[in-house]
């Protein structure tokens, strides 16, 4: 795939979705343009989707939160007559590289999580209205909504046919949400997931697969009523007007290096490394949320979140051989804290809330990035509060200790703030510091005692907040040797090791999706029974069945 996958889009260029707004209720129509697939070689028939369709969905969900705060209920439905959604496009999956499949699934999972969380987090509830065949990824879209209404028209069914049809798993949260969210009895879940044609009508409700089954003639009425209920119950403030998410400033150099208004991403292809330098704010924090709203998508912390999000996604999908992401910051830590304080102090303001929630998602996106992550805390850096959270997301952090000759930048420091103690839980529902100190919870309290105080290397080291400190004698070599060594390890082993070490502690539905479900799916995606020349996924559409290796492993 030589073409760059761009995660930036906007409503003027959508191919696959339409949104209508009516006060507190928005309706989101999935109406996939079959000839507008992201790559050649497949048609997106029957409202099936590829990454391009999902990029638009992610954009809609994001804009819904920032540009349409008046919306409290979103009805997700099909724009096509006889089909809701046939799921991920099989030919696309059959033709995609393993890496693309894995990253596609990860991104779609993240998007599902985003609109799933919108109800509880910010009172924007997604309601799914299912009419027409709703299969595989189609039902997974529904599963991520707060409520599923199914028409009882005698033919509409919901199904997860991946296992019987394709010899893969419903990997976009399907298996997990059936048991963990909808709490379908496990034997019935077994029947459901092994039945190609799925379940329709009352049985779907009896089995807890949907929330409501209505007569077809009452379908529209029921959707409208349910949307009103959710809108009425929403905790969201009513008065707000949205801000516009303006296009990002981004340039891509010939060598692949990226430059945003707040981040530079330097690509060193030979070293298999991307260095992300986050630049602290140039300006003082806005004094009030009103001013923040006036700045809109230009406000520093929102702009940075969007740019960081885009950079991570770009690297994930377009730079597969860049195995190391090195995070650096440069700027004034106090100014970073001032910017974030405005949001934290006004966390009940709709926009402050949305920006903080967005940071939660961006940080999770970093957690879930299957590249070795390292942070370098150099002189002049501004790892404070939200940005310090990056230090606890990475696999290792290295900090400069003492003065370096010829370097007159302020001494390397890191600064904790309330941002590190609650608002940004990981997918295991713990904060990054709680996760870090799983065996020594007292150390979280120890760190909390140093709130807002710039911590230099020795102190940060003592508190367990960083991995290593090096002075000017050792710094260059130690960092170089680590980076070179890391780049030499098997990328697969790194992915596996890091994914295990990053998420200690309790399981949640999210960790089960990204851990258990994804890992098994990615294993199956490598196995001949699915992807071999005679595997079910490759043979899908040819009429021939998969020829299976019958050994159980």
């Amino acid at each position, binding site marked *: 795939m030589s073409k760059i996958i761009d995660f930036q889009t906007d409503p003027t260029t959508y191919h696959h979705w339409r949104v209508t707004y009516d006060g507190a209720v928005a309706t989101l129509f999935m109406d996939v343009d079959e000839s507008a697939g992201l790559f050649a070689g497949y048609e997106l028939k029957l409202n099936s989707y590829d990454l391009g369709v999902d990029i638009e969905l992610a954009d809609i969900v994001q804009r819904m939160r920032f540009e349409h705060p008046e919306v409290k209920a979103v009805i997700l439905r099909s724009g096509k007559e006889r089909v809701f959604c046939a799921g991920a496009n099989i030919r696309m999956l059959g033709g995609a590289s393993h890496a693309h499949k894995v990253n596609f699934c990860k991104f779609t999972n993240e998007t599902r999580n985003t609109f799933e969380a919108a109800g509880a987090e910010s009172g924007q509830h997604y309601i799914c209205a299912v009419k027409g065949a709703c299969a595989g990824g189609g039902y997974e879209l529904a599963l991520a909504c707060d409520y599923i209404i199914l028409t009882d*028209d005698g033919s509409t069914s919901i199904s997860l046919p991946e296992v019987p049809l394709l010899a893969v798993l419903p990997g976009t949260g399907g298996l997990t949400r059936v048991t963990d969210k909808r709490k379908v009895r496990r034997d019935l879940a077994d029947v459901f997931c092994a039945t190609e044609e799925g379940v329709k009508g009352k049985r779907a409700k009896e089995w807890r697969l949907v929330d409501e089954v209505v007569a077809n*003639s009452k379908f529209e009425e029921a959707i409208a009523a349910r949307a009103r209920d959710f809108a009425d119950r929403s905790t969201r403030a009513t008065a707000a007007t949205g801000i516009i998410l303006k296009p990002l400033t981004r340039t891509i150099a010939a060598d692949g290096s990226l430059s945003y208004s707040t981040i530079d991403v330097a690509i060193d292809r030979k070293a298999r490394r991307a260095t992300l330098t986050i630049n602290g704010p140039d300006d003082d924090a806005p004094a009030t949320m009103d001013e923040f709203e006036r700045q809109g998508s230009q406000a520093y912390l929102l702009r940075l979140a969007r740019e960081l999000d885009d950079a991570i996604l770009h690297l994930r999908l377009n730079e597969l051989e860049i195995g190391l992401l090195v995070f650096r910051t440069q700027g004034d830590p106090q100014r970073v804290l001032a910017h974030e304080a405005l949001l934290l102090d006004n966390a009940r303001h709709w926009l402050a809330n949305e920006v903080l929630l967005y940071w939660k998602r961006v940080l999770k996106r970093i957690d879930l990035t299957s590249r070795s992550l390292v942070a370098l805390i150099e002189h002049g850096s501004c790892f404070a509060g939200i940005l310090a959270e990056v230090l606890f997301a990475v696999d290792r952090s290295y900090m400069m200790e003492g003065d370096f000759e010829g370097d007159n930048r302020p001494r390397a420091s890191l600064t904790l703030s309330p941002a590190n103690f609650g608002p940004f839980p990981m997918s295991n529902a713990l904060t990054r510091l709680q996760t870090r100190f799983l065996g020594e919870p007292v150390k979280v309290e120890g760190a909390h005692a140093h709130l807002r105080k710039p911590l230099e290397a020795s102190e940060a080291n003592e508190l367990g907040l960083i991995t290593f400190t090096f002075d000017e004698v050792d710094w260059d070599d130690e960092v170089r040797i680590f980076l070179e060594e890391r780049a030499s390890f098997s990328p697969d082993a790194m992915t596996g090791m890091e994914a295990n070490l990053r998420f200690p502690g309790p399981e949640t539905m999210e960790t089960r999706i990204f851990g258990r479900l994804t890992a098994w799916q990615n294993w199956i995606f490598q196995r001949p029974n699915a992807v071999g020349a005679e595997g079910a996924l490759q043979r899908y559409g040819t009429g*021939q069945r998969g020829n299976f290796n019958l050994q159980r492993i």
Partner: protein
Amino acid sequence: MLDLINVSYDTQIPNNVGLSTDKRVLKALEKWHPGYISWWNDLIPRDFQESLVYLRTAVSVDPKGWTKFDYVKMPEYRWGILLAPQIADRKIPCGEHAGDAAWQDVPGEYRAMLRRLIVIQGDTEPASVEQQRFLGRTAPSLYDMRNLFQVNVEEGRHLWAMVYLLHKYFGADGRDEADDLLRRSSGSQEAPRMLGAFNEETPDWLSFFMFTYFTDRDGKMQLESLAQSGFDPLSRTCRFMLTEEAHHMFVGETGVGRTIEQTCLMMKKAGIDDPFDINRIRALGVIDLPTIQKKLNLHYTLSLDLFGQEVSTNAANAFNAGIKGRYLESKIADDHRLNGDTYKVWNFVDGKMVQQDVPALTAINMRLRDDYTRDAAGGIGRWNKIIEKMGINFAMKLPHEAFNRKIGVFAGKFFDPAGMVVTQPAFEAGIREWLPTKADGDFIQSLMKPCYEAGKFAGWIAPPKVGIDNQAGDFEYVKLHMA
């Protein structure tokens, strides 16, 4: 010993499948029966339910003499379960199991696929009865009314045939599906029939004839390919259904033919030679040939849509599994597996129509559609003979398969009936000449006056050459009960 040729009447449900000794299925069918009767009773207008209709009833599955004619009230028609005789040592005719012994029970791995095929086929059978429910009121003769009801009761019997398979071979799920076949209803807002074309009302008799000629012919092709199924009970069921289906084609072909004949006759009488002198022709109380051509265009293209996408995974799977074959599979000289074979399919590349070779397995639908088009062309030739004999310069023809399509590669694009790409404005301008307009429909409707006198026919349609069961021209095919 079981008599598998002659129909047994020892249960409420006539059959040749030994129902009286198959308590489980008998019980299921008896439970389903009242729902079916009430469906029928609610459907057909009361007057006709009470009328005595001269119907044929299958009494045997022997091709030489399977039927007997008699007067019967439709609700008392003996809908039965009839399978064609079993062929000894029948083999699976196609796909990866070709050459293995045909299945007498449902193979577990194909349960879902088979059930879906049977449900879709089953769903179309009652649908057409629903679409045609009001036509009795405007029947152009008792002869035609009888033919309508014959078609209706046999479509009802075909529903029974599919329900029997669901009850006998698909357990509780099969019973649920059988119930849903009565729950869905043509054009219903609540639970419409599965295929779009079966949710349109059949508004007039010309539509009925076109429907039986073109749409029932799609049904015939589907039955032909299911008759090739490696699942033997399905094959036997469909083989017998095909013997009945032939009459439906006959009703369609002769119905359109008689309409054409009457138009030509009246034109000649009035000294009109120009078939496009529409107003004068219509003033004669007959349907002008260009309008008949428009109806033909509509029904043919709607029926083509019923074949689905040209390249289809479901069709490929069903063929490879051996549960649905091609038209006349056993007479095709190839390996019946099609691995590596190709078939030409229309595609649209850079704005041009091209024929491309695709794997033959995936083009099963396309092939069946091509067979259908050949099959449908036969009657057109015979209709044109009628016109030619009358010395009128006009010929009916099938429009190009690209014209007016809603499904498949041509959908969403604009073509004229000759298959030339046209702009949307050109299409919209041309459509009045190509497809029936509302005014055309209104005109046809204005002719739809019942003619209930034995031996008499409405002015727009000629009498048949021969009567049903060789009855004389004034035979009273329906003894109307007009309370």
